[in-house]
């Protein structure tokens, strides 16, 4: 087993462990704990991206997700001043059927992944660094229109958020 394979198992384990702690933490029901574990999940996933030679996306993942998006989450948690969530009566029927449905979906997905013949290169050499992605984005022409549309989308989102967070909507 080579070093990248070992690193894959390490990062995959960390990603799934922290992901599980986001969803169900046995020690704390505080949303802040979930947010912190989500940051750790995202960082471990950036490690997986590096193993997949997607260096630019690994950096963007840490900057945008672990940086900007999670800071937004923490700001909102502080703003709402949530108290420790008190336990309410759990709907046993909902829990059982929900877990059953998710387990079924997981079974289907893994069976599809391991049962079919995946078309994959034996010795992949593609490297997603900044230069390669920039060339793909700006010289091929097929991504220029989506790129401009995304910039408009960000503007629309910004205006929408300002409108939503006004005190009195008229």
């Amino acid at each position, binding site marked *: 087993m080579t070093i990248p*394979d070992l690193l894959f198992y390490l990062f995959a384990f960390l990603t799934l462990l922290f992901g599980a702690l986001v969803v169900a933490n046995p020690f704390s029901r505080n*949303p802040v704990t979930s947010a912190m574990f989500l940051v750790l999940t995202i960082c471990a996933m950036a490690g997986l991206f590096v193993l997949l030679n997607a260096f630019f996306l690994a950096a963007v993942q840490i900057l945008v997700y672990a940086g900007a998006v999670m800071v937004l989450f923490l700001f909102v948690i502080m703003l709402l001043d949530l108290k420790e969530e008190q336990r309410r009566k759990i709907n046993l029927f909902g829990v059982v059927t929900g877990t059953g449905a998710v387990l079924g979906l997981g079974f289907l997905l893994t069976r599809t992944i391991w049962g079919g013949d995946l078309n994959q290169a034996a010795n992949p050499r593609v490297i997603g660094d900044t230069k390669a992605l920039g060339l793909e984005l700006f010289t091929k022409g097929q991504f220029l229109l989506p790129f401009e549309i995304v910039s408009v989308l*960000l503007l629309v989102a910004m205006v929408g958020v300002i409108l939503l967070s006004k005190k009195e909507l008229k």
Partner: protein
Amino acid sequence: MTVGLEHYLTVSAMLFCLGLLGVILRRNVLVIYMSLELMLNAANLALVAFSRFNENLTGQMMVFFIITVAAAEVAVGLALIVALYRKRQSAHVEDLASLKL
């Protein structure tokens, strides 16, 4: 056994299932939203894995756009949650059931 596309896809599928479990089981709106982010990230991981093992950068471009749109979506979603909290003083989904029949 060398690590191939299947291994990455399995991790992605498991992460997606974890996120779905969080959306179904948790009752705090913010935690549900974080689980949604987890599912989005699982899809990103699958796309990057496909991109690598098919020697095609289009998958990574897709992830680039998904991250941008996700940032906008998080901003709008959190603004909605804050507006809801102002109206109802609660971030619990069972208190936000006015659309329920």
